């Protein structure tokens, strides 16, 4: 007997140990918990260029941190900004030196300034000849807004215009040492653009950013008490999301565990259920997490939060065993035999329902499917292996009213009565109009919770900067870089025409296409073809004719060839980020900024009809993906339900199977109606809740049918199952994260409806005296 017990413990411990050991060997120690929800999206079937462009724009967004120091005294504010910069660099963030970059770029543009006339300027010089140039030089020299020595470096002021037209990161913010700075309403602003290297969404990256911001804020306060420090960026949102999820996980777990323990203590009045339920819980969560890590290398925060809800399901099998052991009709040695059918079918059906989630192709649901199936199987294993060798003595707890109440409820509900038909009909009559209010929303932004304080700061900073993140980006593909630049120039002309307030940013703003540069050089060449005319034009303008000679000498000394991408990239390597080289040629990344949020439809319209150009809206693509998954998951629910229906028909016959399937369908209808009335949109997480509702409703019917329709123990087990599920899943409705809240609310309504309608799965029958 002892050997038999030891063998069971050994089998259980070794199986769990091997799984955990394998998971440990696969664990990505740098990122054991992944908070980036985007990594849970399925891979898109995109071209290589689009995949890399999406990744690059996403990385640029998720790694960027903006810090704004402001104050009323320029010198003090600058000193505070320098202190903030030092603190953030010391904390491990990277900063760009905009001033240095600007100077390097300016040198290259200065060298090639003859190639940088825009089409209108080139046309003007070609048509107006030497006289037009002399006029422009005269204006440049005369204007109070002109540079003293402009003639030497920029005759006519054309280079100045080119440089002034270059895309600026933020309107009114100009390079000022390592900062971008501006003055508004007597307040001085110094902007720092920083980068979090590594995985910004990983704990290390986001925590680093948050710590750097804290240190910078302290440094600013110590340097300038009146100055204000604000920061925003994806790493800070990731850090807040992690802390919030962690906090929610802890309190959801603690509260649901405490409530479940109180319920167990009230019903069984013994320590044994706590110990065994605790063992089952720890083992099932450990096995679930290990299985996810073994397969995926890390576990996502969403999976972990959903995993806490496993508390409710994993314990159901224990309740079935406990109810029969403490208050059932079987002796201890026969308990397992009595519940085996119910446990087996419930476990198989539950695992099958969750396993179907793996077929959605949605990594998030795949992780949850693996987590749930592994957790359920481990929970079942603990019940089957450990419970029979630990609960061997006859229990001494007497049945009390709370134990008898569930059986009474089931028995009353099973009495032949017209109310068995009227109540469901009324519920459906109320619910059905709600179906017509149902609407779907797959916008990923509506699934997340952004802390109001961070949102306010972000909005304030973006308003000060006068620039909001664009809704997407343009991808311009062509066989070579020059053709891509020409296509981008056409695109930007369309954008300027259709969205005059928008500011297009792309490589062609820094590197005009070769044809445009050749046109510029040709215009100058036509001017210098006749030096005598040039001298005459200057003389007629009242300027020294020698200026013409000076210009011609500068022309002869200049490269007189287009600026190349290689030369520009050597001076400003960051511009390389616009270029994606593919097997088929080159793709350029470009985008458009506005002083308010730009309309994605207008940007898409600007790209319409242009060869090789497309507008990519990543959020819309994610929403499309969510929609596809939601629709696919819904069909999987239907197919899964039909499959399980087949199993029930095989085991119980068609008539009884249909009766057992009716309560879950009723609960589903009521839940959908309630969600419609409340205004909770359908999304992929609500669909998961519907799968759960169908699964648990079916389990209740199986438990009642398999263990004994009118007996105390199955009724008690079903009641405890429903209550613990409500305590665990239902608690999610209080979550700050909208995705979890919607899931919890749907489950709360659905499980309540499932439990109350469970007696409908049994045939009407009068209680025997």
């Amino acid at each position, binding site marked *: 007997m002892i050997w038999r017990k030891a063998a069971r413990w050994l089998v259980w411990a070794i199986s769990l140990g091997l799984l955990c050991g394998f998971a440990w060997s696969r664990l990505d120690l740098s990122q054991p918990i992944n908070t980036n929800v985007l990594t849970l999206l399925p891979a898109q079937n995109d071209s290589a260029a689009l995949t890399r462009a999406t990744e690059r724009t996403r990385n640029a967004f998720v790694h960027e941190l903006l810090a704004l120091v402001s104050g009323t005294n320029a010198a003090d504010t600058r000193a505070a900004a320098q202190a903030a910069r030092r603190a953030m660099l010391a904390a491990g963030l990277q900063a760009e030196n905009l001033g240095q970059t600007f100077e390097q770029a300016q040198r290259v543009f200065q060298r090639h300034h003859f190639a940088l006339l825009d089409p209108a300027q080139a046309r003007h010089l070609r048509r107006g000849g030497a006289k037009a140039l002399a006029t422009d030089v005269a204006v440049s*020299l*005369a204007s109070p807004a002109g*540079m*003293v*020595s402009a003639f*030497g470096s920029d005759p006519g002021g054309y280079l100045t215009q080119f440089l*002034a037209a270059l895309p600026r990161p933020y309107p009114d913010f100009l*390079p000022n040492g390592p900062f971008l700075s501006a003055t508004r309403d007597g307040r001085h602003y110094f902007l720092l653009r920083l980068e979090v290297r590594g995985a910004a969404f990983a704990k290390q990256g986001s925590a680093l950013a948050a710590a750097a911001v804290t240190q910078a804020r302290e440094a600013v306060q110590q340097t300038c008490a009146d100055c204000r420090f604000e920061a925003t960026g994806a790493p800070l949102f990731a850090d807040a999301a992690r802390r919030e999820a962690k906090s929610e996980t802890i309190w959801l777990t603690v509260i649901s565990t405490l409530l479940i323990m109180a319920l167990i203590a009230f019903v069984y009045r013994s320590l044994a259920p706590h110990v065994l339920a605790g063992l089952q819980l720890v083992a099932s969560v450990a096995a679930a997490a290990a299985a996810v890590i073994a397969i995926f290398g890390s576990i996502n925060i969403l999976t972990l939060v959903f995993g806490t809800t496993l508390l409710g399901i994993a314990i159901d099998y224990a309740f079935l065993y406990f109810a029969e052991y403490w208050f059932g009709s079987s002796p201890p040695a026969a308990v397992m035999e009595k519940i085996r059918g119910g446990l087996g079918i419930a476990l198989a059906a539950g695992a099958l329902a969750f396993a179907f989630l793996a077929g959605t192709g949605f990594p998030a649901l795949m992780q949850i499917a693996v987590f749930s199936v592994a957790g359920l199987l481990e929970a079942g294993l603990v019940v089957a292996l450990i419970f029979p060798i630990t609960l061997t003595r006859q229990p001494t707890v007497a049945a009390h009213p709370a134990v008898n109440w569930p059986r009474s409820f089931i028995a009353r509900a099973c009495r032949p009565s017209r109310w068995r038909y009227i109540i469901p009909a009324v519920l459906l009559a109320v619910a059905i109009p709600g179906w017509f209010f149902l609407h779907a929303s797959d916008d990923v932004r509506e699934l997340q919770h952004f802390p109001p304080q961070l949102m306010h700061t972000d909005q304030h900073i973006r308003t000060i900067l006068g620039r909001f993140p664009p809704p997407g980006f343009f991808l311009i593909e062509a066989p070579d870089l020059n053709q891509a630049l020409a296509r981008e120039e056409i695109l930007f002309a369309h954008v300027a025409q259709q969205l005059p307030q928008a500011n297009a940013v792309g490589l062609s703003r820094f590197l005009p296409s070769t044809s445009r540069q050749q046109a510029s050089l040709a215009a100058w060449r036509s001017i210098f073809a006749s030096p005598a005319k040039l001298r005459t034009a200057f003389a007629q303008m009242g*300027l020294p004719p*020698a200026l013409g000679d000076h210009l011609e000498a500068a022309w002869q000394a200049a490269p007189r060839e287009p600026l190349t991408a290689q030369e520009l990239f050597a001076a400003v390597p960051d511009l390389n980020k616009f270029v994606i080289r593919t097997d088929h040629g080159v793709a350029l990344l470009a985008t458009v900024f506005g002083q308010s949020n730009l309309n994605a439809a207008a940007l898409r319209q600007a790209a319409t009809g242009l060869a090789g150009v497309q507008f990519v809206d990543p959020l819309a693509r994610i929403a499309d993906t969510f929609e596809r998954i939601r629709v696919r998951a819904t069909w999987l629910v239907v197919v899964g339900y039909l499959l399980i229906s087949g199993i029930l028909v095989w085991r119980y016959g068609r008539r009884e199977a249909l009766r057992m399937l009716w309560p879950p369908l009723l609960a589903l209808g009521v839940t959908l109606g309630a969600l419609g009335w409340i205004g909770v949109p359908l999304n992929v997480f609500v669909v998961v809740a519907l799968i759960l509702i169908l699964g648990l409703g079916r389990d209740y019917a199986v438990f009642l049918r398999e263990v004994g329709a009118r007996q105390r123990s199955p009724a008690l087990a079903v009641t405890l199952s429903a209550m613990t599920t409500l305590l665990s899943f239902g608690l999610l409705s209080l979550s700050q994260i909208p995705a979890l809240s919607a899931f919890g609310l749907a489950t709360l309504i659905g499980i309540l409806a499932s439990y109350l309608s469970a007696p409908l799965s049994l045939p009407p029958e009068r209680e025997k005296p």
Partner: protein
Amino acid sequence: MKYARLVFIVLSLGTAAAAAPAANFAATFVQTRTLPGFDTPIVSHGLMRVDPHGFYWEIKSPYHYVFAMHDGHVHEELPDGTKRQLDPDQKPWLAAVEHIFVSALSGDRSQLQRYFNVKAEPINTGTHVTLTPKPGALAKVIERIEVTESAPGHPERLQIREKSGARMDIRFTPVAAQP
């Protein structure tokens, strides 16, 4: 290239350095630009007016040119007679220049101090202001700027010396302010 616009900004230095709001001011001027490599300086004559709402700058010889900025609107009249409106939205430096200019006219030195070390010495007729650029891109172009007042708030002479050797010297002769 905002730094290229300093000629315009420093015209208001007298009032900014004196830290007193400017009255209307009008003057004729002689502008002498000396370019590196040219023996002959380029000399032009003109008229300027300043008031709290804007600035008027007219070259009368050797060619005709007008630059006027008033309440945020900027227009130019070119030597060939062409008139054109400059849009500060399209030419962001104009908005910055206007802002700095208006600040300076209202006696706000902070914009100047953002880029320069400002040294103001009282002289018999007003103030002599010397601006030396703070370290940065500006310091690589400008060596020194000096403004001498003929009366508080009225510049008499403006000199800009560049690192390249280029110089600009503007001498103002006040005339009765026009309404």
